[in-house]
């Protein structure tokens, strides 16, 4: 049961960001998005695919910038989708805008290698 849930992106908020993202023992991909952002909706299925493909190796989270404005401004988000990769509590890689799956895979592999 738990395994099935773990393969879907996890929605995080200001309340859960520290424990789920900053304190995660594995790298975390955070998709900063909003309901009104059309490229965010276009990239969403790719983010879901990544959650499946990297289950157990990378945690995939989604953060709604309307619900968590303070986090969006803390990370200087002024364009969405912004996909930030966290490792050990800090941002190690960042993609701005909707990109093909192959590009996200490339960035994740870089992070997993280091």
């Amino acid at each position, binding site marked *: 049961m738990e395994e099935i849930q773990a393969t879907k992106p996890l929605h995080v908020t200001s309340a859960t960001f520290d424990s789920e993202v900053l304190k995660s023992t594995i790298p975390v991909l955070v998709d900063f998005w*909003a309901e*009104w*952002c*059309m*490229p*965010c*909706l*276009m*990239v*969403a*299925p*790719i983010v879901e695919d990544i959650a499946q493909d990297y289950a157990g190796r990378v945690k995939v989270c989604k953060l709604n910038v309307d619900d968590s404005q303070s986090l969006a401004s803390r990370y*200087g*988000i*002024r*364009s*969405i989708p*912004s996909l930030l990769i966290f490792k050990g509590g800090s941002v190690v890689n960042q993609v*701005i*805008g*909707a*990109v*093909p*799956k*192959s590009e996200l895979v490339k960035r994740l592999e870089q992070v997993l290698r280091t």
Partner: protein
Amino acid sequence: MRFDVLVIGAGPAGLTAGLYVSRAGWRAACLERLAPGGQAALTSRVDNYPGFDEPVSGFELCRRMEAQAKRFGVEVVQGEAQGLAVAAGSVVVRSAEATLRADAVVVASGARPRELGVPGETELRGKGVSYCATCDGPFFRNQAVAVVGGGDSAVEEAMFLARLCSRVYLVHRRDEFRAVKTVVERALNDTKIVPVQSAVVTRIAGTDGVEAVEVRNVSTGATDRLEVAGVFVYVGLLPNSEFLAGQVARDGAGYVITDEDMLTSAPGVFAAGDVRKKSLRQISTAVGDGAIAAMSAVRHLQGLRAQSR
């Protein structure tokens, strides 16, 4: 993977081509790098697509086109075309994930926003420099922004931003806007929109985020600094046609050259939509191209089948 017709791109042109091929009884797939809709899906409001008497969002319009294409059996395959080769009677398309083969290919890979090419643009991308008002506009609520460009997209998106932002400078290199007259009139009547005509952007300034755009008047040479938090660039398009280099004839700007039946210089390869050299790039013209390209592809398939019989 093998299809009768492989369509590269799932925007309005590609989805229409797929729909017509499938409905004619052949196996069609659209290869899409992101998700169906393409650039059209990013348009905040589509006012002039026939059949929609009330404005519709580009996203909603494209969602319906996708659903309609799928109803006729079009498959959407994820991936970005990286190369294309024409071999005897078939076309091979390479993506990062797979090699796809088809008897005919419709290139409907669209276009992407052209960059200004000024200092600060790349460095401040995502930190105030944007190519999509509907995506990033809400981050600039009650702040001043600049829109660069003078065509329909620039003027339409300036009006969208004026609903959110405190002030919108509309910077255009010519003295008159190219956009449709009624749209320009509506924009110039908006008290929040400040037109800055005959001016070119020379630099986007800022350290952690955009702080200003520097402009120069093309006739007087006078310079000015507009204090803004965001810059939205709408200065035209670049065709997504690099993967066709050496295989399909293109014009100097990279647009694919076709005849009126959407035939390209390569046998079995057709083109439709924004990637094609033509005079008007609209959703309505993309859809027309898609239908014509599909029927030409089907004729090509029938010819191949007749030969092999």
